[in-house]
């Protein structure tokens, strides 16, 4: 009966969970800001406070994500792909493919149905393959990231983005606004563009069902709808952003008990 902690420092949001016997005891989400060290420290302090625990109660901490290598306190660092695989298998043991859509990168991971990774592909060179693309367009339209998915569902006529570059996409969106095209149609277009890139990643490793989504992208109903239209029916965790932190914590538990 031990408590373990999983910390996922993303480029946008930092996530932390405390688990005991595979059950979620506490969780927290905070903006990462510029200084990951500060974010990690704050995350841990608030997480412990929420769980009513002291640092000595935590048997082991595993960190993951973009800023995991500079966390200022004692922990182990595990690649986010492994944490994602662990986390999603914990939630949906039968999952064979998971699409992890983060702010700065996306990855598609294949699992053997027992939690082991058999293949994966990462897209981290280009913003148009990650949540960043949605952020760029939401900015132009002066909308919140969390509202654009639902708005995009109202469109019947998605704009086609022609270049596959988030920066050029930004200018295309501005041009469409100037032409009087609705925000909904532009949003549907950017969701379609991102879904297309993700579907291409899935195709690279080959789809095996069931398929799940994780990361911030899993919060976006517009993206999930577009992926569905491309033939990807998805299992969506109740809190998709927490999957990797959960996986990290579960992994920490396994290491403590073994």
């Amino acid at each position: 009966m031990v408590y373990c902690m999983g910390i996922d420092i993303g480029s946008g949001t930092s996530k932390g969970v405390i688990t005991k016997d595979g059950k979620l005891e506490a969780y927290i989400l905070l903006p990462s800001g510029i200084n990951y060290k500060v974010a990690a420290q704050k995350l841990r302090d608030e997480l412990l406070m929420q769980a009513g625990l002291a640092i000595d109660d935590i048997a082991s901490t595993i960190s993951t994500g973009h800023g995991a290598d500079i966390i200022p306190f004692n922990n182990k660092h595990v690649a986010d792909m492994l944490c994602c695989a662990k986390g999603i298998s914990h939630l949906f043991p039968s999952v064979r493919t998971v699409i992890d859509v983060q702010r700065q990168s996306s990855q598609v991971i294949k699992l053997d149905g027992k939690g082991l990774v058999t293949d994966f592909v990462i897209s981290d060179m280009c913003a148009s393959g990650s949540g960043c693309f949605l952020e760029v367009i939401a900015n132009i339209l002066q909308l919140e990231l969390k509202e654009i998915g639902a708005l995009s569902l109202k469109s019947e006529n998605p704009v086609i983005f022609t270049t596959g570059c988030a920066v050029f996409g930004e200018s295309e969106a501005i041009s469409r606004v100037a032409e009087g095209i609705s925000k909904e149609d532009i949003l549907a277009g950017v969701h379609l563009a991102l879904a297309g890139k993700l579907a291409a990643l899935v195709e690279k490793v080959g789809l095996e069902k069931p398929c799940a989504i994780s990361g911030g992208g899993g919060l976006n109903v517009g993206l999930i709808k577009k992926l569905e239209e491309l033939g990807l029916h998805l299992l969506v965790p109740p809190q998709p952003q927490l999957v990797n932190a959960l996986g990290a914590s579960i992994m920490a538990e396994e290491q403590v008990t073994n």
Partner: protein
Amino acid sequence: MTKVVIVDQEEKICASVIKHTGAEHRRLANQVMQQALAQASLEFDEIAYVIATGYGRIMVPFADRQITELTCHTRGVFHLNPNVRLAIDIGGQDAKGLKINNGRLLNFVMSDKCAAGTGRYLETTAHTLGLRLEDLDSISLKSSNKVSISSTCTVFAQQEVISRLSEGAPLEDILAGIHDAIASRVARMVERLKVEPDVVLTGGVAKNAAVVKALEEKLGCKILVPQEPLLSGAIGAALLSKEIIQKARERCEPIRRKQRRLDEATFFK
């Protein structure tokens, strides 16, 4: 940018105007044309032939003909330097390499799907740092210890710029890294064409001395920049117009011109 060049029969440039295109103004090529006409003290009807080129060439309803920018650039650069063997054009939207021999286009490479390696990369960086685009190169050239920028993507590179700044890296070193990154990307692209002198650089980015220097180092040869690097495509289009008229007159053929009026484009209405 929208550029208009008017040439006379002796290939002398009578007028040249460069204006921002922008989202709203891209159908207003007629206004830029009017400015050029005023500069040359000409009426629109006195212009024998109009060729439109570039991305927005179909937005020019008063043009007699549309010709691709590859052809126009080749003509323009060859006019400016008859010894050109490789023309590199880096605009705000794309980057191109043109292999030219005796004024003929032999081969080309182009990158227009990604903002990295185009002027847009520098514009975005200037915006991130709150600097003017035209100041980037002089700041960058002060650096002796460039910061390496690992992201290819323009969006990610901006985040890297901010991270490096917050870690205390000097501005000039970061900018030197940015200029090095764009030059690397362009060099990798044009190296597919086998680089031979003379190499001419045109487009808005040619005005950036730090890119010119970095590109010279990467390609291992001198890079020539025309006095007004933005105009080579428009000069080429003007010269091609002149040649069409000349040929028609020599053969006593009628000049096939469109019914044209100096109007704005109306595609969006």
